[in-house]
């Protein structure tokens, strides 16, 4: 319970879409492939007695390590780390693995709500929501929700923000 008591504030209730894990794994695979191709080209073109012979086994090892982290570990860690919630009065998110950041923005101060869908997000049926306020630091981003949930949340937030907007921000 020590971790619980040390947390300054409560955690938001909801996690992202499970499809996000698939998306992050795909990103990891693509990253591994592209760096793998670069290393292969390096190994083919640079002669055995090249400038730094150590690089011949250090570079593949680095790519392998990256693959393990980016495909096998990071997606699940990220899924556990990101949490979000929309309450009656506010939007609330938690991000960050080592340094954790909780952001709370009241619906009455929302200026714009953006929904974005990247190429890979579309493949996995996902979308991101960004909630902007008058402050450059008061921006809430919720990555990778199911597209229909994201759209519903954005519409709902925009609608409620209009009803309760505080004009004097």
């Amino acid at each position, binding site marked *: 319970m020590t971790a619980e008591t040390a947390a300054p504030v409560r955690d938001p209730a909801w996690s992202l879409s499970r499809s996000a894990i698939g998306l992050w794994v795909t990103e990891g695979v693509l990253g591994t492939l592209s760096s793998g191709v670069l290393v292969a080209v390096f190994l083919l073109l640079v002669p055995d007695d090249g400038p730094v012979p150590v690089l011949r086994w250090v570079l593949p090892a680095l790519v392998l390590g990256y693959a393990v982290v980016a495909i096998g570990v990071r997606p699940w860690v990220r899924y556990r780390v990101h949490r979000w919630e*929309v309450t009656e009065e506010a939007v609330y998110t938690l991000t960050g693995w080592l340094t954790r950041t909780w952001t709370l923005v009241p619906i009455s101060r929302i200026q714009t709500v953006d929904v974005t869908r990247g190429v890979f997000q579309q493949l996995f049926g996902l979308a991101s929501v960004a909630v902007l306020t008058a402050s450059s630091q008061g921006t809430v981003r919720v990555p990778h929700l199911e597209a229909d949930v994201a759209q519903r949340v954005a519409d709902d937030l925009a609608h409620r923000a209009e009803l309760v907007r505080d004009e004097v921000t």
Partner: protein
Amino acid sequence: MRRTSPRVVLVHTATFRQARQLVPLLIPVAAVVGLDDGVGTIVLLAAAVTALSLAAAALSWWRFGYADGPTAVVVTRGLLARSVRTVPNDRIRGVEVETPPLHRLLGLVRVRIDAAAGSVGADEEELLVDGVPRAEGDRLRARLLAHRPATAPPPGDDGQPEPPEEEELTRSDPRWLLYAPLVGSYLVVPLAAVGTLFRFLDELPDAVIPAVPGPDVSDPRVLVAALVAAVPLLALAAVVGAAVVNWRFRLLRRGGSLVAVRGLLTRRHTELEVDRIRGGTLSEGLGMRWVGAARVNALVTGLGQASRRGQLLPLGPRTTAVALLDRLVEDPGPLTAHPPAALRRRLVRSLASGVLVTALGVAVAAALGWWWAPVPGVVLTVLGVPAGTGRYRALGHRAGPRSFSVRSGWLVREQAVLQRRAVVGWKVRQSPFQRRAGLATVVACVGAGSGGYAAVDMAAADVAAFTAAASSGTWARGLRSWTDRPGRRPAAGPRAARRGPLP
């Protein structure tokens, strides 16, 4: 569409406003042509430059127009590519009328119109109408500011708005200028001027620079003498710089606006809406704290980072600054100090670099036998102790009935006092080290000033109570754990929630 006064062409010709970017081009031209042919070439060059400048100024005057319509201000300009900028009247945050010396000579003024900066793209949020007669400048200011419904004064008998009552809040004392040598920003100006001069000399072709036999710089006595001479010169330059900018500073309250007037050569006239002021900052640099000086900036929504506009007291005694800040926003009371764990964190941080340098120095001393190698590291480490404790002492936060305050910083200690309604969000950060020490950093997101003001390293257990007490309404209670408020637990997930109580 209105035009600026044709007299502004004279001003711009004389100051090379449009032709200024040609000057770097001309220097190599002069170098190629050579200045050896005597006075004739120089006169010819000067005439050509002046003619160019006159043509450029006349062209840009001819292509410039502005109009203050019933709903928006429109400014048209551009030589080949026409640009039309339209700013709706309700986005105008302030109007500044300034009178540089040449303008004053010809009876002209320059009007700057501040438009609200959104959360994206804060630059280029300003309209400039350069060179209208003084009466037209005053008319423009009065008209643009009168559009704002909250501050429009009732019209008098002659149909003109009655001049609103004035109240003087601050009037600067010339003696306050003596604080200037202890303020970093005023010291930077003369140093930057010297730097520019050197760069300019560097760009000049060698033929133009007369060969002056300089003193031998390698002689340490010359260096020491130069340093000793530089200190009073620098101080003098800082005082002069502060005088030029802030001469006869006055802050008035006129109707619903705060008006700041200042400047020696260029009289600047800045107006801020009181209704948009959300709070203020009190900043004290290291040197300023020695002599008890401070400066006050207003935090105005929509003004973004335009800190110069928000300056309410550029430089003055701390007591005056505190009294002024009290009039802007209610004082929430004495600050709560942060827990001792915060002091440990500040000390570790400020000592770490010194210890690292010392370790490196010891290694170098062991390897090369330079006994003095660890000295800079030791000095850094020793200096780290006052720096760390100073940083810790600066930390504090407090939530009052209508306002709250946070303070941090050592080189420049800044205390922000804000109205509760200013907060548009809370951001709570906790690093692994902070988690172990039971601390957290809380940032109040504000649509004014730098966008966020932080209470660094406050006790993690106090965060929920502070955020709830420092924001208006009940929304910030969302940070408290559900166990504290039973019966308000949200639905199990977003899909369930959206079928829930939402409208």
